[in-house]
Every structure is written in structure tokens, then in C-alpha cells.
């Protein structure tokens, strides 16, 4: 794949984003061209094939996690991109932003035990028919780390498209052990675990690549 053929993946950077560099590195390792894009931009870079909203503490988590970022100028462009069928991946704080923006159902609440969780998590594929999980069977296990304080998804698992669940002990008290949900079309995915932190053998797992590959194949 030459540089000009490589798909362009746009990683949005909000004030307080932390994981944009590691997300960019993981996606670039899969063959994408990656550009970091500012929160105040009103358009996405021309040729954007997929968008990542990274982890961190956008706008200091003020008011509610993701609330202020979800109203940032760039989110109007992300909304248009998503509504046109573009693939959008929200990781951790990015998941919170997508819920607050109404692009995904539900909301992320403080962990039930009120403590920050930081550890490897076993995830179960609940829906293998999304671009992110295709090729994985239903019930397949992925080992991907979590690191969050407000990761308890609250919503209606009956109407939401649940893509990933925690296997075994629920680390944050989310409804129905939900770890990640998608929009009805499956093109927008939000998850609390960090696939970019499970993308290299040095990190102890490469299972995150399965999910990230959908950005590059878009």
C-alpha cells in the first residue's frame, strides 16, 4: 500500500484528550495515514475515511464527562460524517462524547464502586455483525485494558446495539455488563476499553487490532 492509497483516519483532539497519540500510532501501524484534528475545526480533513475520538479528560470532565466536547465545533462535522455512514470509533472519553452527542444511546456514569479501574479486561463479542467485529465469532473473547472512573454505561440494552460485554466480573457496574455499543447501523462504535493499548505484542495483547482494522478497511 503506498502512502497515497492508504486510507486517511482522522483522530480528533479536544483540550484534555490524552490518548490521541497512542490511538494514532496504533492506527498508523495498521497502514493508515493519520492526522490529528483540532476540536475547533468545523470540517473534517478532506478525504477522511474514518474518525477516532480518543480517550482522556476532554474539557477537564467539567459538567459531565464528554458533555462539553460533544458540543465542540468539530462535532457537527463528526455528526454529518456519521449520519452519512462514516465509521466513527469513540474510545473511553470518546465513547462518553458520542453518548452525550446523541450519536450513541445511553450515558456513562461513575463506576459503581466509585474507584478508578485500571486493568486488563476480558471482553465478549455480543454482536459479530458490525464492521468492527466481523470475522470474530459471537462469544469470542478479546483481552483489552480498561482505565476509567466513569465507565458504567446506563441505557436500555434491549434497544441498543450491544457489541461488547465484560466477561466475568463487571468492573464498573454497567447495565447488562455492557462494555461497548454501536448505532443501529453498526458504523459508530463506542467502548470503554482501549483497543489502542492492545495493539502490539509489547503491550501484552494485540486483540485491539481486530476492532481498529475497521478504521483502515473503511
Amino acid at each position, binding site marked *: 500500500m503506498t502512502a497515497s492509497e492508504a486510507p486517511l483516519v482522522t483522530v480528533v483532539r479536544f483540550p484534555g484528550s490524552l490518548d490521541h497519540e497512542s490511538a494514532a500510532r496504533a492506527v498508523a501501524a495498521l497502514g493508515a495515514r493519520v492526522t490529528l484534528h483540532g476540536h475547533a475545526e468545523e470540517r473534517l480533513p478532506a478525504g477522511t475515511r474514518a474518525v477516532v475520538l480518543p480517550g482522556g479528560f476532554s474539557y477537564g470532565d467539567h*459538567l*459531565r464527562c464528554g*458533555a*462539553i466536547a460533544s*458540543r465542540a465545533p468539530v462535532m457537527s462535522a463528526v455528526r454529518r460524517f456519521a449520519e452519512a455512514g462514516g465509521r466513527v470509533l469513540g474510545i473511553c472519553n470518546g465513547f462518553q462524547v458520542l453518548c*452525550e452527542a446523541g450519536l450513541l444511546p*445511553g*450515558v456513562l*456514569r*461513575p*463506576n*459503581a*464502586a*466509585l474507584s478508578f479501574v485500571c486493568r486488563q479486561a476480558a471482553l465478549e463479542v455480543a454482536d459479530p455483525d458490525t464492521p468492527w467485529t466481523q470475522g470474530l465469532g459471537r462469544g469470542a473473547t478479546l483481552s483489552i485494558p480498561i482505565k476509567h472512573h466513569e465507565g*458504567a454505561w*446506563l*441505557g436500555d440494552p434491549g434497544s441498543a446495539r450491544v457489541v461488547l460485554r465484560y466477561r466475568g466480573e463487571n468492573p464498573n*457496574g454497567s447495565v447488562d455488563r455492557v462494555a461497548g455499543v454501536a448505532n443501529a447501523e453498526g458504523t459508530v462504535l463506542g467502548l470503554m476499553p482501549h483497543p489502542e493499548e492492545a495493539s502490539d505484542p509489547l503491550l501484552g495483547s494485540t486483540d485491539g487490532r481486530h476492532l481498529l482494522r475497521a478504521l483502515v478497511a473503511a
Partner: protein
Amino acid sequence: MTRVVVTVMPRAGVLDPQGQAVQGALGRLGFEGVRDVRIGKRIELDLEGEEPERRAHEMCDRLLANALIEDYRIELGS
């Protein structure tokens, strides 16, 4: 100028881990009979212009409260 006070509270039935932590701490301090603790936010807005109450409602609906998990109340004046 109108002072508008917005009170945002977790909705009934929504787990409030902050409130539970504080409830536990009060019990450990020896306070008895603390049946429930709910923690919310007070937001003070100083608004110029017409229709401060209507605009405050719109602000709540669009940003200040998340209707999935929170209720809000608006008070005007002082």
C-alpha cells in the same frame, strides 16, 4: 440582569455513587438515621436580556442537564 439558579439532581432510581459514599462516611462519623444522600449541582447564571427563564430552560435541555439521568429545577431572582 437576572440571577438564575439551576439545580441539577440525579433522577430517582439512578445510582448515585457519590451520595452513597457520603452516606457511608456520615454513618462512620456516628450520624444516625441518614436514610439517603443525593448529590447534585447548583449552577448560577447571570443573564442579560429578555426571557431569562425560557433561555435557562433551553440551556438545561441542550447542555446543563442530561435528561437520561438528571432532573433540573430553575429559580429566578436574588
